[in-house]
């Protein structure tokens, strides 16, 4: 893991530059628009607002007995928003190196900065939105101390996205098809998670499949904190940490094998 450690140190040394890059990335997502900075926040916000309107206000759909909450819309929003954050961060992280190719060719900068800025930019948009949702849930679900667990959950998700995004960025640099494949996996991944349906609704024999999705643990964590006011179960932390560790090992090997030629592939 020495290599990952040196990457982390390079990232820390260049933290002011990462901050500039991140602010710039956020700004470039709405450059030339009249509403400006509102747009990146507005799009996910409107999507979850639509879930709430359609499922809870218009149709008033209800989940079964075992679900953590009865309202379908409220249930959906808690899982879908972190999932959208995950997809956004992973996808942008994955293309970050290819997009920054010309910059990396001309400037002696560590590639890891560019993956980090994409993931950080993504979280600077979705992080506040998730906290906003948490505040919006207080009237219906009460304010419990467990809400403090949101912060470690968010940090863990960011770490997961950073590691996964960087690994995919290297693979995508080697073979562009990776980006297409991952795009497909992310679009079907929502069905392999307890976002649309509570895990209790999945057949007992097939529940293990859900754990192949790195976000399953985190989604359940958010649901437990926001809907039930409970501290996340140990399985949430374990599953996510196992994913982060496994991906770190893979990433370490990928960086070691590609570091002296990565820029040539961009």
């Amino acid at each position, binding site marked *: 893991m020495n290599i990952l450690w040196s990457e982390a140190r390079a990232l820390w040394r260049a933290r002011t*530059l990462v901050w500039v890059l991140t602010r710039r990335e956020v700004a*470039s997502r709405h*450059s030339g628009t009249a509403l400006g900075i509102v747009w990146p926040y507005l799009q996910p916000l409107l999507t979850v607002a639509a879930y709430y309107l359609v499922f809870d206000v218009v149709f008033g759909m209800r989940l079964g007995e075992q679900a953590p909450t009865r309202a379908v819309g409220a249930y959906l929003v808690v899982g879908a928003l972190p999932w959208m954050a995950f997809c956004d961060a992973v996808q942008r992280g994955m293309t970050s190196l290819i997009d920054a190719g010309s910059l990396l060719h001309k400037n002696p900068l560590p590639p890891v900065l560019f993956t980090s800025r994409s993931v950080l930019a993504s979280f600077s948009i979705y992080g506040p939105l998730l906290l906003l949702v948490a505040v919006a849930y207080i009237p219906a679900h009460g304010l419990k101390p467990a809400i403090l667990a949101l912060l470690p959950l968010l940090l863990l998700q960011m770490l997961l996205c950073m590691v996964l995004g960087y690994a995919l960025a290297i693979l995508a640099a*080697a*073979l562009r098809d990776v980006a297409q494949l991952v795009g497909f996996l992310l679009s079907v991944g929502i069905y392999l998670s307890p976002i649309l349906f509570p895990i209790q609704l999945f057949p007992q024999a097939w529940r293990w499949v859900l754990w192949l999705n790195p976000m399953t643990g985190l989604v359940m964590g958010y649901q437990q904190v926001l809907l039930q006011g409970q501290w996340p179960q140990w399985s949430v932390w374990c599953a996510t940490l196992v994913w982060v560790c496994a991906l770190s090992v893979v990433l370490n090997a990928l960086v070691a094998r590609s570091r002296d030629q990565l820029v040539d592939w961009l």
Partner: protein
Amino acid sequence: MSTKNSPNTPSVVPDTVLSVAGVAKEYKLYPTPRARLRALLTGKATHRSHWALSDVSFELRRGECIGVIGDNGAGKSTLLKLLAGTLQPSHGRIDRVGRVTAILELGAGFHPDFSGRDNLYFAGSLIGINHDEMARLEPEIIDFCELGEALDRPVKTYSSGMTVRLAFALVTAVQPDVLIIDEALAVGDQNFQKKCVERITAFRNSGCTILFCSHSPYHIRHLCDRALWLKGGRVEQFGNTEAVLAAYDVHTRAREAAAEGDAPGGPVPAVTEGAGAGHPPDGSMADQSRHFAAPKAASDGGSACILSVDVAHLNDAVGDQPPVLQGHDLVVTIRARGRGMERPNIGFMIEQSKGVGITSLATHEDGAVPVQLDDGTWQSVLTFPDLPLHSGDYVISAFLFDETGLAVYDQWFQFLHFRFIFPKPLPGLVRLPHRWS
């Protein structure tokens, strides 16, 4: 990370700002990107190796100016990228002291939707100029790039020249300890090119080490103390500029001769048609005139250029044969338009039609000055009394320089072939000054 800036590395003596030791760069060539992914996942080597550089070692001291020459594919760009730090060497180490600035491709970091000023601050942070420092440097950069109001418009509305000006002003805003230039002098308009050359010269005079890669032996000769000749990824020669350039010239001519030997033989046309602006028009060949004039369009523009070159006493060419010089004197009249009030310099070169260069001359080297005519153009008449050449076919080129002799405004390269007949039947090329006793 052996290429990080290391001010305290003990292996580097204080005077040395850049030390390259046993550096090699391998490019791994995979048959397909799929093989690349497979190698990445399995760790097995399935690539062919291409060693762009092998065993390159040299040291640069403070204030030196080094020219890098070599054929295409000799590894020049790879070397510059390694020194700039955008590529990592496969073997060996590079130690650098202080700030290294590379002018590899200008304007690469700019975002088209943001304003020039915004891009200035962003691109500055990429090369290690923070916000406060940039605020301090900004007036000077704006002054240098001459963008004025345009600085607050999005970069996508800029012409390529404007982008390059902004980028050059930015990267050279802070004087580096080592400046790496990759053929970047040929940017922008003449006025800006001159400013670039002046700024680089100023850096050099105040102790900046410059590494300069160019195909132009002229610039290397004028700017550089030493030259590095790369051949097939190795250092072929490194040392005194003239010696290395001479050796490289021999190599280039040998290579060209070999290439010509392979090609089907045929008579050399009387006047070769070269590419490039300001070349004599085809019509002047048809009527076999000895007077060459620039195309009308070129002389209408405002930029400095060679207007005409007259060679006296040339008879008309017959068939494929070049025109023959009548008499013993070669008298060449070169007329050029300068830039503004500046007094330009004029250069001249004569070579064998198929073979070696004989001599090149320039007004600034000889302490001569072109004469300004009534219409504001400049003229030099160059006379070789009793032309000291043996019989043969020769080719001449004309050049127009700026006042300092550093920027080349215009060139008519090998634009006129002629034949000279020396009445005595002795073999040889030139008749050297000599004395019998």
